């Protein structure tokens, strides 16, 4: 027998009580301990366990000492009983008690707590992940100083709002405008880097010297371009991106002053740009170094983008007004090139992220649903548990605890749960964010800026607090409302019809939200599936595409270029397993585009409303054969279509119908801006240039093909970077990669291949945004479905337990197992059914937000509704089955004995 008195006196020593008082208390407690210890041993507990339990209960850590300290030292205090009114000014100390008690309660119900924390962790983690994407992409300002002053400027015409700018127009804009403190321009260009080992294709930009100062960039090494370096005829200079400098030149500062050979130009390195700037671009050259004739022509639009920085105090509207006036003036001055051209000015950030805003907001909405479902689930768990705790609260109330005090205790517990959920959710979010950014389509702007920061952490904290209150409030109100008299009287069966109603509502709400997510994901799956079935107008399989560039040695003369291109195709075609190969300036469904203005006949350029725009392909003769674009009339290009023969063109059937309605287009003439009049020699089938889905609705649907061999010499020098080689293979196209690379490289081994892709991959990329949305929605819908199933299961299990007596009586009276199962199923399916109907109605209202991502299915697509109903019904039955099975195994005799 342990020496209780000794043990207890030692614990009480720190209180410094009067010796006789201490002895008295120690004796009394020792007796209690002894009784308890004996009782535990009698019930079969081992001696050591009994000792531990007894000490635990009698002294309860420091609880006994601190309880005694209050009384024995401070005399009579106001607080009388557990859960009684907290004195004013002692709010926090009361909170501490709540916290301790809360933690103890949650630890005691480890299983319950684990499920609740896991559920909340998933909900909070998913929301945090989506928020960190939202935060990085939409909310944070761009990484330029005073980035709100930056506007993107575009040419605007009858058919387009965001057209690239003609360089002469840019120069005039810059000279004439006063709203901007500076204006810069840039255009993408690929460069062939030679002279140091393997030839290498590097991505670059031609920029005006003003661009980097306008953006407010300070180079970490060297300097930016001087205005005098951005002039024709001056020596070439180049700036490197930070990543390129690191990867290619080992971040050596000695790179300054070195010379790089880019497209056969020797360029001196003058600086390195900041790390955060312009991820994929590797080199920057002054735009005046661009030898292309296109730059000087006012009606040529070689992909030039313009950025302006507003003067402090000038608003966007004022700037827009001024730019429109300038554009009007230029239209009068140059009616042929600028007749319908105005200016679009948009804040740079809106321009960058505007396109993805609806998608991201949609994701935010979807994840919000998941969070609400998680909350409803935990609320239901708490409700079910509060049944077991009903009498605890009743007795607390009987002891004088006020209602709000009980609510506070319960809210403390739910907040503890949600904070634990957040603690679990954060690493989950970190992981999910990485996954999201990796899975996101390349078109997601600013994905490099996505990550956890203070805002994200703040968001997580706020979400967890709000969810804590959200799911804790309803159960807390219910518990506090409990009528102590009723709950004490009712014995083991808890009370509360309204609690069951609340549970039912929660389950229906969960089901409803899960249905919405499910419907959304089914619609997305259908859209993506239907898009895969769309005929793009050419044959996708066994088609390999890649960008190619010529050796600088070949680019000495137009003739040299023509010969080199011809030989390149011949070398590739000679490879075993390659059926045909061809070059094109533009590939369908890719990232780039190229348009040309044209009109019917051979007259001079007519009034602007007679001028049409067409997608423009410059191709080698076999291109239609390689792509297997069906020829509908006439002939395709041959080797005889060259500079010394009549210029010819192929048009697609859309153009044929539009330009030559009811007449045979063969032999007719059309005129192409800058290229002159050509004769239509064939009509081919329209291809889906702009995307499998959006091609039908694009404003520019005419397509014109022009032979590469007939491109005038003046366009031959600068315009041959960015050619694509397409080949039709006999087997898996990607297996030809190495052979094709070698064939393209040529005898001089200095012609690089890049962006090598099978056409199936190009198509898959064009669907990336939808596929991403589909995947995320499927994940969310699955989580939602799982949580809803848990919700239904939980409520039905509890309902069966509550109805034990009733079910026992029923089976005693002869109800069959099937009837009992039916009874349970009916109740569960009633809840799920209510949620299903509400969810279907709600999804019909909400799915229009998905419309821009849908293809070939309507928001109220019957197949979707059926699929959702079947899936949900299946899951709901599954969730009810276990409780139903338990109901059938109730022993009538046992059930009745419980009464």
């Amino acid at each position: 027998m342990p020496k209780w008195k000794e043990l207890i006196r030692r614990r009480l020593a720190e209180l410094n009580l009067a010796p006789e008082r201490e002895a008295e208390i120690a004796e009394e407690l020792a007796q209690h301990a002894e009784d308890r210890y004996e009782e535990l041993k009698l019930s079969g507990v081992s001696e050591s366990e009994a000792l531990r339990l007894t000490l635990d209960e009698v002294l309860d850590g420091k609880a006994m000492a601190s309880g005694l300290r209050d009384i024995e030292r401070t005399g009579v205090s106001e607080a009388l009983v557990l859960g009684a009114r907290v004195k004013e000014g002692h709010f926090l100390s009361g909170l501490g008690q709540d916290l301790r008690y809360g933690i103890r309660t949650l630890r005691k119900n480890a299983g319950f707590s684990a499920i609740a924390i896991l559920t909340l962790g998933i909900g909070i983690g998913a929301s945090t992940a989506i928020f960190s994407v939202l935060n990085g992409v939409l909310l944070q300002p761009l990484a330029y100083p005073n980035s709100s002053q930056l506007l993107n400027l575009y040419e605007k015409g009858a058919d387009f709002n965001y057209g690239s700018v003609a360089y002469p127009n840019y120069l005039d804009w810059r000279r004439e405008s006063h709203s901007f403190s500076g204006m810069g321009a840039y255009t993408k260009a690929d460069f062939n880097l030679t002279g140091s080992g393997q030839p290498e294709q590097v991505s670059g930009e031609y920029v005006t010297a003003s661009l980097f100062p306008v953006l407010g960039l300070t180079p970490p090494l060297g300097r930016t371009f001087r205005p005098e370096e951005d002039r024709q005829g001056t020596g070439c200079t180049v700036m490197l991106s930070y990543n390129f400098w690191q990867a290619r030149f080992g971040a050596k500062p000695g790179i300054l002053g070195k010379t790089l050979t880019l497209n056969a130009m020797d360029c001196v390195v003058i600086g390195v740009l900041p790390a955060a700037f312009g991820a994929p671009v590797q080199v920057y050259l002054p735009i005046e170094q661009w030898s292309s004739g296109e730059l000087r022509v006012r009606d040529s639009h070689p992909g030039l983008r313009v950025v302006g920085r507003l003067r402090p105090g000038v608003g966007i509207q004022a700037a827009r007004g001024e730019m429109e006036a300038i554009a009007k003036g230029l239209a009068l001055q140059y009616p042929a090139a600028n007749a319908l051209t105005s200016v679009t000015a948009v804040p740079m950030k809106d321009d960058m992220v505007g396109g993805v805003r609806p998608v991201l907001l949609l994701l935010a909405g979807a994840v919000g649903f998941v969070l609400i479902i998680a909350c409803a689930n935990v609320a239901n768990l708490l409700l079910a548990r509060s049944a077991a705790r009903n009498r605890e609260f009743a007795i607390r109330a009987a002891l004088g605890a006020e209602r709000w005090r009980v609510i506070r205790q319960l809210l403390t517990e739910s907040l503890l749960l949600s904070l634990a959920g957040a603690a679990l959710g954060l690493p989950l979010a970190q992981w999910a964010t990485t996954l999201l950014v990796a899975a996101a389509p390349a078109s997601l702007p600013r994905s490099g800026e996505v990550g956890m920061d203070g805002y994200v952490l703040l968001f997580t904290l706020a979400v967890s607090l709000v969810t804590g209150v959200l799911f804790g409030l309803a159960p807390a109100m219910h518990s506090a409302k409990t009528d102590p008299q009723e709950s004490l009287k009712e014995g083991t069966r808890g009370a509360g019809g309204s609690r069951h109603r609340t549970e039912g509502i929660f389950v229906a709400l969960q089901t409803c939200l899960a249905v919405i997510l499910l419907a959304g994901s089914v619609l997305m799956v259908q859209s993506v599936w239907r898009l895969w079935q769309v005929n793009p107008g050419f044959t996708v399989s066994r088609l390999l595409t890649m960008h190619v560039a010529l050796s600088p040695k070949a680019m000495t003369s137009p003739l040299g270029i023509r010969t080199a291109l011809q030989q390149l195709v011949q070398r590739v075609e000679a490879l075993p397993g390659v059926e045909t190969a061809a070059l094109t300036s533009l590939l369908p469904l890719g990232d780039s585009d190229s348009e040309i203005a044209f009109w019917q006949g051979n007259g001079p350029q007519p009034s602007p409303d007679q001028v049409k725009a067409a997608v423009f392909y410059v191709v080698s003769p076999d291109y239609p054969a390689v792509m297997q674009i069906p020829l509908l009339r006439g002939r395709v290009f041959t080797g005889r279509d060259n500079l010394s023969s009549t210029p010819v063109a192929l048009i697609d059937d859309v153009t044929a119908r539009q330009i030559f309605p009811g007449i045979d287009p063969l032999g007719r003439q059309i005129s192409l801006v800058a290229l002159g009049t050509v004769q239509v020699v064939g009509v081919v089938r329209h291809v889906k240039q702009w995307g499998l889905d959006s091609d039908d609705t694009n404003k520019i649907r005419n397509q014109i093909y022009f032979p590469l061999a007939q491109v005038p010499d003046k366009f031959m020098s600068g315009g041959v970077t960015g050619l694509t080689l397409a080949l039709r293979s006999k087997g898996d196209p990607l297996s030809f990669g190495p052979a094709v690379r070698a064939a393209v490289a040529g005898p001089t081994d200095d012609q690089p291949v890049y962006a090598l892709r099978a056409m199936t991959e190009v198509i898959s990329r064009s669907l990336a945004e939808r596929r991403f949305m589909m995947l995320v929605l499927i994940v969310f819908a699955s989580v939602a479905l799982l949580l809803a199933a848990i919700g239904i299961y939980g409520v039905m299990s509890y309902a069966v337990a509550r109805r034990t007596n009733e079910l026992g009586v029923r089976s005693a009276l002869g109800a069959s197992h099937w009837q009992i199962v039916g009874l349970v199923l009916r109740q569960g399916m009633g809840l799920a059914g209510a949620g299903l109907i509400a969810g279907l109605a709600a999804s019909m209202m909400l799915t229009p937000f998905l419309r821009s991502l849908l293809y070939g299915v309507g928001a109220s697509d019957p197949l979707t509704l059926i699929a959702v109903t079947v899936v949900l019904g299946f899951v709901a039955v599954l969730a009810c089955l276990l409780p139903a099975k338990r109901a059938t195994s109730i022993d009538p005799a046992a059930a009745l004995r419980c009464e």
Partner: protein
Amino acid sequence: MLLLSLIESVPRHGYEIGKLIERRSQGALRFHAASLYPLLYRLEKRGWVQGRWVEKAGQRRRRYYNLTAQGRKVLAAQRKGWESFVLAISRVTGNENA
């Protein structure tokens, strides 16, 4: 109030009070010694209950608590104020076999 009513008619010692609460609340409420005794001492300081050492033949001496006159008044007042709970409380205090 619960405690007061438990010792209204019969003086009881701490262990017995704890057990009674547990049994009558069918396990829903358990006062561990760590909260029970401080509460008893507090009530004693207020003068609502009085603890007394009692020796019975063949047993250790035990401290029994009974209600003081003041305690009785408090209990009566509390009961009046909590009339709606009388039924519930009588279940705990009135019927040993509940």
